């Protein structure tokens, strides 16, 4: 077997093909940029797909205002260093209403500051295609989603009414107001993503690496105290522990894991030896069985 037969090489070629197809077929694509490792890989692949030219679409970040500070710094640095156009959108109505993850529950908060914010941004930009970094191995409902996933005028996904997707012939045709969500990393696994980050030396947010950080322990979920908006429960106080994050999002909703893994191979080693799946660290998935599927129907990424 030669290097070009390796699964990573195949996955890379498939992702590049998908991205080029979107640019060929769609009038106004945009790339959702969540600042996580999957977004980093997706951005890296996009730069490969269109080299030696610039990215033919902007990045869009939905800023809930509750992201880790290190994420925002990384985002701005990445956009500047790579010279890519970065759009940042926050749901101003939600912000004005003071919607936050402490008072309104993860479900309401996510709906207003993420799902609705995303819809606003896509509508305002009149984007007919949005790239997302989701992978099919992440969650059960995603295992069945198309690579080119149709959204109606209300950004809804109908799992019972998906377009058949055959060979590498992707049908991205939509009417005005409708759109495509496109997932170039659909066939990547978590290990593939990490391996690729390592092999290609792709920059990622330092929060993925273990370091002493201030956290509170809530029934086994380690929540980081990232700024002074943090609400301590009575008797609660931050303690410094060696932790890292397997997934990144809004800091009050992201659970850390205790770790001493500071290098990529060590992180990958821990991941491989882990006995719990990746999304477990995300608070929103626990609300109820099948909850991700419901969010996706409503337009969540």
């Amino acid at each position: 077997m030669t290097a070009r037969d390796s699964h990573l090489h195949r996955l890379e070629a498939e992702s590049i093909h998908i991205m080029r197809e979107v640019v060929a077929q769609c009038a106004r694509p945009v790339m959702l940029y969540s600042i996580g490792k999957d977004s980093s890989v997706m951005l890296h692949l996009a730069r490969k797909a269109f080299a030696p030219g610039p990215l033919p679409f902007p990045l869009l970040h939905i800023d809930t205002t509750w992201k880790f500070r290190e994420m925002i710094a990384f985002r701005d640095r990445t956009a500047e260093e790579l010279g890519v156009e970065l759009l940042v959108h926050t749901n101003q109505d939600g912000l004005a209403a003071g919607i936050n993850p402490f008072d309104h529950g993860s479900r309401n908060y996510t709906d207003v500051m993420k799902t609705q914010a995303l819809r606003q941004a896509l509508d305002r930009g009149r984007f007919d295609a949005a790239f997302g970094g989701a992978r099919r191995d992440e969650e059960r409902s995603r295992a069945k989603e198309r690579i080119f996933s149709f959204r109606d005028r209300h950004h809804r996904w109908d799992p019972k009414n998906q377009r058949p997707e055959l060979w590498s012939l992707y049908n991205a045709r939509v009417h005005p107001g409708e759109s495509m969500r496109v997932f170039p990393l659909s066939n990547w696994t978590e290990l593939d993503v990490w391996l690729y980050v390592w092999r290609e030396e792709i920059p990622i947010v330092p929060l993925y690496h273990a370091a002493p950080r201030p956290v509170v322990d809530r029934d086994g979920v380690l929540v980081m105290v990232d700024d002074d908006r943090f609400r301590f429960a009575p008797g609660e106080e931050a303690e410094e522990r060696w932790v890292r994050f397997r997934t990144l999002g809004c800091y009050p909703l992201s659970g850390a894991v205790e770790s001493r893994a500071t290098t990529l191979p060590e992180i990958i080693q821990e991941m491989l030896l882990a006995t719990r799946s990746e999304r477990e660290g995300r608070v929103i998935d626990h609300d109820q069985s099948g909850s991700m599927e419901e969010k996706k129907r409503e337009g969540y990424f």
Partner: protein
Amino acid sequence: MAHQSPLIATDVEAYLAEHEHKDLLRVLTCGSVDDGKSTLIGRLLHDTNLIYEDQLAALTADSVTSGTTGDRPDLALLMDGLKAEREQGITIDVAYRYFSTSRRTFVLADAPGHEQYTRNMVTGASTCQLAVILVDASRGVLDQTRRHSTIASLLGIRHVVVAVNKMDLVDYSRERFEQIRDEYLRFAEDLEIGEPYLLPISALEGDNVVTSSAVMDWFDGPPLLTHLETVDAGVDASATGLRFPVQLVRRPDRRFRGFAGTVASGTVAVGDRVVALPSGVATTVARIVTADGDLHAAHAGEAVTLTLDDEVDVSRGDLLVAADDRPHRAHDLDAVVVWMSSQPAEPGRQLLLQSVNGLSNASLRTIRHRVDVTTLAPVPAASLSLNDIARCTITAERELLFDAYRDNPVTGSFILVDRLTNVTVGAGMVVGPASRWDEEPSGAMQHHPSEVTADERRARLGQRPATILLTGMTGAGKSTLALALERRLFDLGRTLLRLDGEELRLGLSRDLGFSLEERSESLRRAAEIARLANQQGLIVVVAVQAPQGEVRERIRELVGTDRFVEVHLDAADEVRRARDPNGLYRAADRGELADIPGVTVTYEVPVNADLRLDTGAATVAACVDAIVALLGERGVLGDG
């Protein structure tokens, strides 16, 4: 998820280096819940330690409420995706699963077994190299088994594993397994699925899934996982040379003009001569650009950007191909179509066709027949319904570039999109260019046989009817000889009709261009006229290039072998070029025209010609003499 290699704990970098170089096998699993397919996949993941603790915990909890295995975790529940499906207890769409072992990484496309979901299986199969078909040992080979095998065969899957499951229910009987095996192999003889691998398993108990069965020691083949890890399923199974469909033209600045795409088959290297289609212009590959530096060569499956030595007009949907191995080009496709919409389609239905050529307006012209996916038998059909698989003719507004699906699944496949809703309503696999020669007349037309008999005509005209085909490349002297032959036969008192290819194009065939497909159609029209004229007792002289042997055979069939005289006119290249009656050689040298037989496309030299004349060496009169002599021998001129 990854398997538990001891290397992970001891030397993770070594493990990663090993993992990085594993290849990828895409596997389709087909069968229904009743066959234990979900249990099998769950078993594969479970026994290779690929299930996380939290997933297993959720599974154990779910098993109590909706499981079917009592106090054991119901592995089948792992595979069900969407909430609605979990409640219904059936899988209704294609789900993808990922796992790796120490040898390979795998993508499993899990396709449902229910009869009405052919479209899902076709969807899953379209990206897979290998299919695992489940058979319930207690029920044997069912219609469903045949259906899955047929679809795998149609979709070009050449590696099939038949897992005879639930052996625990038949006391692990060797006799039962062999009975099923023999029945399956008899059925599979008519399919194109290579040599299927049949093995007895029990997904529930784990026999022959990951490890060899202790109970079934009479079976000495490898267990399922070992087979999947070791089977040689090459990535580029296509039979065609270079095909590089241009996906996107990139011109970030005035100096760089690159053609981005994925190599569909073959290899492209710097310095290779390639031909851009449809323009037909030849050029040389200057660079193979990637973000990681230029390559010397790129192979099937690789996504690259090519630059060319010349300023060639190439856009999305065009193909760069090997100069000596070209795809078909035609408007009409003969294809196997899978209909995927609940709204039926009838001939005349307007659609969009999407292929590596991009989009084209198209229509469903004819439904030749439906295919019974259980028996492969053709069944008459007036329309296409959901999940129908049918042999159809599709007509595209644009001339398409394509290969037969069996030769190249990338350039031989297409999808059909509804023009109003934009929904994908069908998928197609090209058999070849559709020939209008095969088309059935529409409606209730009938022949009106003449009351004048052939004998009466022969007596009146003093001749036997015949069609003399003068075939040859441009400049071979066809028109000149046809005129001289007409004069001579007329002077001999014969009644005849002369058809000249060029004259046909001034009238009868003025709607046609010069592609092989359109030449074929022009010849069909000429042949139909010749047949009618022969029926009226006339001798017909047809002067046309007729570059394709297959088309000349068609003419022979249509007018009848006993009436057909094929004369091949040949002349040396320099003679033809010097004559160059229409300036075609000069135009081709300037790169202006495509599709000139003998210049840019092949002229297939007749192998069974009744007469071969070198018009460069012999005079026109001598050539006419030879033809007249032959006609005399055949009794055409009335002496017989």
